Protein backbone atom coordinates (compact mmCIF):
# COMPACT_ATOMS: atom_id res chain seq x y z
CA UNK A 1 0.00 0.00 0.00
CA UNK A 2 1.42 3.33 -1.02
CA UNK A 3 1.60 5.73 1.88
CA UNK A 4 -1.01 8.44 1.42
CA UNK A 5 -2.13 6.92 -1.88
CA UNK A 6 -5.64 6.50 -3.19
CA UNK A 7 -5.99 2.77 -2.48
CA UNK A 8 -9.46 1.21 -2.75
CA UNK A 9 -9.41 0.56 0.99
CA UNK A 10 -8.58 4.18 1.79
CA UNK A 11 -11.31 5.42 -0.56
CA UNK A 12 -13.85 3.07 1.05
CA UNK A 13 -12.84 4.14 4.55
CA UNK A 14 -13.17 7.78 3.52
CA UNK A 15 -16.56 7.09 1.96
CA UNK A 16 -17.74 5.28 5.07
CA UNK A 17 -16.56 8.15 7.24
CA UNK A 18 -18.47 10.58 5.07
CA UNK A 19 -21.67 8.55 4.98
CA UNK A 20 -22.02 6.83 8.33
CA UNK A 21 -22.61 8.84 11.51
CA UNK A 22 -19.70 8.45 13.94
CA UNK A 23 -21.87 6.84 16.61
CA UNK A 24 -22.86 3.96 14.31
CA UNK A 25 -19.75 3.74 12.14
CA UNK A 26 -17.80 0.98 13.88
CA UNK A 27 -20.80 -1.32 14.32
CA UNK A 28 -22.05 -0.70 10.78
CA UNK A 29 -18.64 -1.43 9.23
CA UNK A 30 -18.26 -4.45 11.50
CA UNK A 31 -21.58 -5.83 10.25
CA UNK A 32 -20.56 -5.22 6.63
CA UNK A 33 -17.20 -6.94 7.16
CA UNK A 34 -18.83 -9.90 8.92
CA UNK A 35 -21.38 -10.41 6.16
CA UNK A 36 -18.78 -9.86 3.41
CA UNK A 37 -16.47 -12.51 4.89
CA UNK A 38 -19.26 -15.08 4.68
CA UNK A 39 -19.30 -14.56 0.90
CA UNK A 40 -15.63 -15.27 0.22
CA UNK A 41 -12.77 -12.92 -0.71
CA UNK A 42 -13.74 -11.54 -4.12
CA UNK A 43 -17.57 -11.75 -3.95
CA UNK A 44 -17.32 -10.46 -0.40
CA UNK A 45 -15.44 -7.34 -1.49
CA UNK A 46 -17.90 -6.72 -4.29
CA UNK A 47 -20.81 -7.22 -1.91
CA UNK A 48 -19.22 -4.79 0.57
CA UNK A 49 -18.89 -2.07 -2.06
CA UNK A 50 -22.38 -2.71 -3.45
CA UNK A 51 -23.93 -2.65 0.03
CA UNK A 52 -22.18 0.61 0.86
CA UNK A 53 -23.45 2.06 -2.43
CA UNK A 54 -27.10 1.01 -1.90
CA UNK A 55 -26.91 2.20 1.70
CA UNK A 56 -25.64 5.63 0.68
CA UNK A 57 -29.03 7.33 0.06
CA UNK A 58 -30.48 6.29 3.43
CA UNK A 59 -27.29 7.17 5.29
CA UNK A 60 -26.97 10.54 3.57
CA UNK A 61 -30.61 11.35 4.26
CA UNK A 62 -30.09 10.53 7.92
CA UNK A 63 -26.91 12.61 8.17
CA UNK A 64 -28.53 15.56 6.44
CA UNK A 65 -31.61 15.40 8.65
CA UNK A 66 -29.34 15.51 11.73
CA UNK A 67 -27.45 18.49 10.32
CA UNK A 68 -30.68 20.36 9.62
CA UNK A 69 -32.09 19.63 13.06
CA UNK A 70 -29.03 20.27 15.15
CA UNK A 71 -26.91 22.83 13.41
CA UNK A 72 -28.20 24.64 10.39
CA UNK A 73 -31.59 25.25 11.98
CA UNK A 74 -30.01 27.69 14.40
CA UNK A 75 -28.06 29.45 11.68
CA UNK A 76 -31.14 29.76 9.46
CA UNK A 77 -33.21 31.15 12.31
CA UNK A 78 -30.47 33.62 13.14
CA UNK A 79 -30.24 34.71 9.51
CA UNK A 80 -34.01 35.19 9.11
CA UNK A 81 -34.16 37.36 12.21
CA UNK A 82 -31.07 39.20 11.02
CA UNK A 83 -32.59 40.02 7.64
CA UNK A 84 -35.58 41.66 9.31
CA UNK A 85 -33.29 43.41 11.72
CA UNK A 86 -30.79 44.68 9.13
CA UNK A 87 -33.69 45.85 6.93
CA UNK A 88 -35.15 47.80 9.83
CA UNK A 89 -31.69 49.18 10.61
CA UNK A 90 -31.30 50.44 7.08
CA UNK A 91 -34.73 52.08 7.05
CA UNK A 92 -34.40 53.71 10.46
CA UNK A 93 -30.76 54.71 10.39
CA UNK A 94 -28.66 53.89 7.40
CA UNK A 95 -25.45 53.79 9.35
CA UNK A 96 -22.85 51.18 8.49
CA UNK A 97 -21.95 50.87 12.15
CA UNK A 98 -25.30 49.40 13.16
CA UNK A 99 -25.49 47.07 10.18
CA UNK A 100 -22.04 45.73 10.92
CA UNK A 101 -23.09 45.21 14.55
CA UNK A 102 -26.10 43.20 13.36
CA UNK A 103 -23.99 41.05 11.07
CA UNK A 104 -21.45 40.43 13.77
CA UNK A 105 -24.03 39.26 16.29
CA UNK A 106 -25.67 37.01 13.71
CA UNK A 107 -22.31 35.55 12.73
CA UNK A 108 -21.51 34.83 16.35
CA UNK A 109 -24.85 33.15 16.99
CA UNK A 110 -24.56 31.16 13.78
CA UNK A 111 -21.03 30.02 14.51
CA UNK A 112 -21.98 28.94 18.01
CA UNK A 113 -24.98 27.00 16.71
CA UNK A 114 -22.82 25.36 14.07
CA UNK A 115 -20.05 24.29 16.42
CA UNK A 116 -22.25 22.96 19.19
CA UNK A 117 -22.88 19.32 18.37
CA UNK A 118 -25.58 18.86 20.98
CA UNK A 119 -29.13 19.96 20.34
CA UNK A 120 -28.90 23.73 20.32
CA UNK A 121 -31.42 25.62 22.43
CA UNK A 122 -32.95 27.52 19.53
CA UNK A 123 -35.22 29.51 21.82
CA UNK A 124 -32.10 30.92 23.38
CA UNK A 125 -30.59 31.77 20.02
CA UNK A 126 -33.79 33.50 18.95
CA UNK A 127 -34.15 35.35 22.24
CA UNK A 128 -30.58 36.67 22.21
CA UNK A 129 -30.81 37.69 18.57
CA UNK A 130 -34.15 39.38 19.15
CA UNK A 131 -32.92 41.22 22.23
CA UNK A 132 -29.83 42.38 20.36
CA UNK A 133 -32.09 43.56 17.54
CA UNK A 134 -34.31 45.54 19.89
CA UNK A 135 -31.28 47.07 21.52
CA UNK A 136 -29.75 48.04 18.18
CA UNK A 137 -33.03 49.40 16.83
CA UNK A 138 -33.70 51.52 19.88
CA UNK A 139 -30.18 52.91 19.75
CA UNK A 140 -30.41 53.50 16.00
CA UNK A 141 -33.71 55.32 16.51
CA UNK A 142 -32.15 57.63 19.11
CA UNK A 143 -29.22 58.45 16.86
CA UNK A 144 -31.65 59.22 14.03
CA UNK A 145 -33.54 61.87 15.99
CA UNK A 146 -30.96 63.29 18.38
CA UNK A 147 -27.39 64.45 18.37
CA UNK A 148 -25.01 61.62 19.34
CA UNK A 149 -23.59 63.66 22.21
CA UNK A 150 -27.07 64.23 23.66
CA UNK A 151 -27.93 60.57 23.26
CA UNK A 152 -24.86 59.48 25.18
CA UNK A 153 -25.51 62.05 27.89
CA UNK A 154 -29.18 61.14 28.27
CA UNK A 155 -30.28 59.09 31.29
CA UNK A 156 -32.80 57.34 28.98
CA UNK A 157 -29.92 55.80 27.02
CA UNK A 158 -28.33 54.43 30.14
CA UNK A 159 -31.65 53.18 31.48
CA UNK A 160 -32.19 51.27 28.23
CA UNK A 161 -28.62 49.96 28.35
CA UNK A 162 -29.11 48.78 31.93
CA UNK A 163 -32.45 47.20 30.97
CA UNK A 164 -30.92 45.30 28.07
CA UNK A 165 -28.07 44.18 30.29
CA UNK A 166 -30.56 42.73 32.77
CA UNK A 167 -32.50 41.06 29.96
CA UNK A 168 -29.38 39.42 28.53
CA UNK A 169 -28.30 38.33 31.95
CA UNK A 170 -31.72 36.78 32.65
CA UNK A 171 -31.82 34.95 29.32
CA UNK A 172 -28.30 33.57 29.64
CA UNK A 173 -28.74 32.54 33.25
CA UNK A 174 -32.02 30.84 32.35
CA UNK A 175 -30.32 29.02 29.53
CA UNK A 176 -27.59 27.78 31.85
CA UNK A 177 -30.19 26.29 34.13
CA UNK A 178 -32.48 24.92 31.39
CA UNK A 179 -29.76 23.56 29.08
CA UNK A 180 -26.65 22.91 31.18
CA UNK A 181 -24.91 20.68 28.61
CA UNK A 182 -25.48 23.04 25.72
CA UNK A 183 -24.44 25.90 27.94
CA UNK A 184 -21.13 24.21 28.78
CA UNK A 185 -20.33 23.54 25.13
CA UNK A 186 -21.40 27.02 24.16
CA UNK A 187 -19.12 28.47 26.80
CA UNK A 188 -16.29 26.21 25.68
CA UNK A 189 -16.69 27.47 22.12
CA UNK A 190 -16.73 31.02 23.40
CA UNK A 191 -13.58 30.49 25.43
CA UNK A 192 -11.81 28.70 22.60
CA UNK A 193 -12.65 31.18 19.90
CA UNK A 194 -13.62 34.35 21.67
CA UNK A 195 -16.51 34.79 19.23
CA UNK A 196 -19.25 35.07 21.82
CA UNK A 197 -17.53 37.38 24.25
CA UNK A 198 -18.97 40.32 22.44
CA UNK A 199 -22.66 39.60 22.87
CA UNK A 200 -23.09 37.92 26.19
CA UNK A 201 -20.12 37.00 28.24
CA UNK A 202 -19.11 40.61 28.72
CA UNK A 203 -22.36 40.88 30.68
CA UNK A 204 -21.83 37.94 32.98
CA UNK A 205 -19.47 38.48 35.89
CA UNK A 206 -16.81 35.82 36.24
CA UNK A 207 -17.66 35.20 39.88
CA UNK A 208 -21.04 33.70 38.87
CA UNK A 209 -19.18 30.77 37.34
CA UNK A 210 -16.94 30.49 40.36
CA UNK A 211 -20.03 30.33 42.58
CA UNK A 212 -21.56 27.52 40.53
CA UNK A 213 -18.27 25.60 40.53
CA UNK A 214 -18.14 25.85 44.32
Amino acid at each position, binding site marked *: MTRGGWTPGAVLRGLAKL*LVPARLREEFLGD*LIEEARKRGPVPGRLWFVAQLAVSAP*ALLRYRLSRVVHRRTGGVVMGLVIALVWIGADLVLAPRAFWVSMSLLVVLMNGLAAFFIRERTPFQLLAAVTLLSAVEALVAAGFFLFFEPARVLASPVTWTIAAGSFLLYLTVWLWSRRAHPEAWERWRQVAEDTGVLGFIAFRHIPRDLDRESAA
Partner: protein
Amino acid sequence: MGDFEQLVMLAVLHAGRNAYGARIWKEIQDRGGRSSSMGAVYTTLARLEEKGYLSSRVGEVDPERGGRPRRYYEVESPGGAALREALAATDRMRRGLDLGLAGPEWAGGTA
Protein backbone atom coordinates in the same frame (compact mmCIF):
# COMPACT_ATOMS: atom_id res chain seq x y z
CA MET B 1 -44.96 4.27 13.23
CA GLY B 2 -44.09 3.70 9.59
CA ASP B 3 -44.28 0.47 7.67
CA PHE B 4 -40.52 -0.12 7.62
CA GLU B 5 -40.21 0.86 11.27
CA GLN B 6 -42.76 -1.82 12.12
CA LEU B 7 -40.73 -4.40 10.20
CA VAL B 8 -37.55 -3.40 12.01
CA MET B 9 -39.27 -3.57 15.41
CA LEU B 10 -40.67 -7.02 14.61
CA ALA B 11 -37.24 -8.17 13.42
CA VAL B 12 -35.68 -6.99 16.68
CA LEU B 13 -38.28 -9.02 18.59
CA HIS B 14 -37.64 -12.08 16.41
CA ALA B 15 -33.87 -11.84 16.86
CA GLY B 16 -34.29 -11.66 20.64
CA ARG B 17 -31.03 -11.39 22.59
CA ASN B 18 -29.04 -11.55 19.36
CA ALA B 19 -30.58 -8.46 17.76
CA TYR B 20 -27.70 -6.61 16.13
CA GLY B 21 -27.66 -4.76 12.80
CA ALA B 22 -26.80 -7.54 10.35
CA ARG B 23 -29.05 -10.07 12.10
CA ILE B 24 -32.00 -7.65 12.02
CA TRP B 25 -31.31 -6.96 8.35
CA LYS B 26 -31.36 -10.71 7.62
CA GLU B 27 -34.58 -11.21 9.62
CA ILE B 28 -36.27 -8.57 7.47
CA GLN B 29 -35.05 -10.31 4.32
CA ASP B 30 -35.80 -13.87 5.40
CA ARG B 31 -39.06 -13.46 7.30
CA GLY B 32 -40.36 -10.24 5.79
CA GLY B 33 -39.27 -11.12 2.27
CA ARG B 34 -38.25 -7.53 1.84
CA SER B 35 -34.98 -6.50 0.29
CA SER B 36 -33.43 -3.46 1.90
CA SER B 37 -30.00 -1.95 2.34
CA MET B 38 -28.16 -2.33 5.60
CA GLY B 39 -27.90 1.44 5.73
CA ALA B 40 -31.70 1.76 5.71
CA VAL B 41 -31.93 -0.71 8.61
CA TYR B 42 -29.24 1.12 10.57
CA THR B 43 -30.75 4.56 10.12
CA THR B 44 -34.19 3.23 11.08
CA LEU B 45 -32.70 1.64 14.19
CA ALA B 46 -31.07 4.98 15.07
CA ARG B 47 -34.38 6.84 14.62
CA LEU B 48 -36.30 4.31 16.70
CA GLU B 49 -33.69 4.66 19.42
CA GLU B 50 -34.02 8.45 19.32
CA LYS B 51 -37.78 8.05 19.77
CA GLY B 52 -37.17 5.88 22.83
CA TYR B 53 -38.69 2.80 21.19
CA LEU B 54 -35.41 0.88 21.29
CA SER B 55 -32.36 0.87 23.48
CA SER B 56 -28.94 -0.39 22.53
CA ARG B 57 -25.70 -1.55 24.09
CA VAL B 58 -22.33 -2.13 22.53
CA GLY B 59 -21.16 -5.73 22.69
CA GLU B 60 -17.76 -7.34 22.65
CA VAL B 61 -15.10 -6.65 20.02
CA ASP B 62 -14.92 -9.46 17.47
CA PRO B 63 -11.79 -10.18 15.34
CA GLU B 64 -14.07 -11.63 12.63
CA ARG B 65 -15.48 -8.13 12.24
CA GLY B 66 -12.13 -6.39 11.89
CA GLY B 67 -11.98 -5.80 15.62
CA ARG B 68 -15.27 -3.93 15.64
CA PRO B 69 -18.04 -4.47 18.20
CA ARG B 70 -21.68 -5.32 17.64
CA ARG B 71 -24.47 -3.07 18.84
CA TYR B 72 -27.37 -5.03 20.31
CA TYR B 73 -30.90 -3.61 20.31
CA GLU B 74 -33.82 -4.21 22.63
CA VAL B 75 -37.46 -3.11 22.44
CA GLU B 76 -38.44 -0.69 25.21
CA SER B 77 -41.96 -0.46 26.61
CA PRO B 78 -42.95 2.71 24.66
CA GLY B 79 -41.77 0.91 21.52
CA GLY B 80 -43.79 -2.19 22.37
CA ALA B 81 -46.88 -0.08 22.98
CA ALA B 82 -46.43 1.86 19.73
CA LEU B 83 -45.92 -1.36 17.75
CA ARG B 84 -49.00 -2.97 19.30
CA GLU B 85 -51.07 0.09 18.43
CA ALA B 86 -49.78 0.21 14.85
CA LEU B 87 -50.51 -3.48 14.29
CA ALA B 88 -53.93 -3.16 15.94
CA ALA B 89 -54.80 -0.24 13.64
CA THR B 90 -53.99 -2.37 10.59
CA ASP B 91 -56.12 -5.19 11.99
CA ARG B 92 -59.03 -2.85 12.68
CA MET B 93 -58.87 -1.49 9.15
CA ARG B 94 -58.78 -4.98 7.67
CA ARG B 95 -61.55 -6.43 9.84
CA GLY B 96 -64.83 -7.14 8.05
CA LEU B 97 -63.37 -6.60 4.62
CA ASP B 98 -63.18 -9.20 1.92
CA LEU B 99 -60.09 -7.84 0.28
CA GLY B 100 -60.20 -10.27 -2.59
CA LEU B 101 -56.44 -10.13 -2.91
CA ALA B 102 -56.08 -13.83 -3.69
CA GLY B 103 -56.76 -13.41 -7.40
CA PRO B 104 -54.05 -13.73 -10.04
CA GLU B 105 -54.22 -10.02 -10.89
CA TRP B 106 -52.57 -9.27 -7.49
CA ALA B 107 -49.83 -11.87 -7.84
CA GLY B 108 -46.24 -10.70 -8.25
CA GLY B 109 -46.77 -7.25 -6.81
CA THR B 110 -44.23 -6.24 -4.22
CA ALA B 111 -46.12 -3.15 -3.03
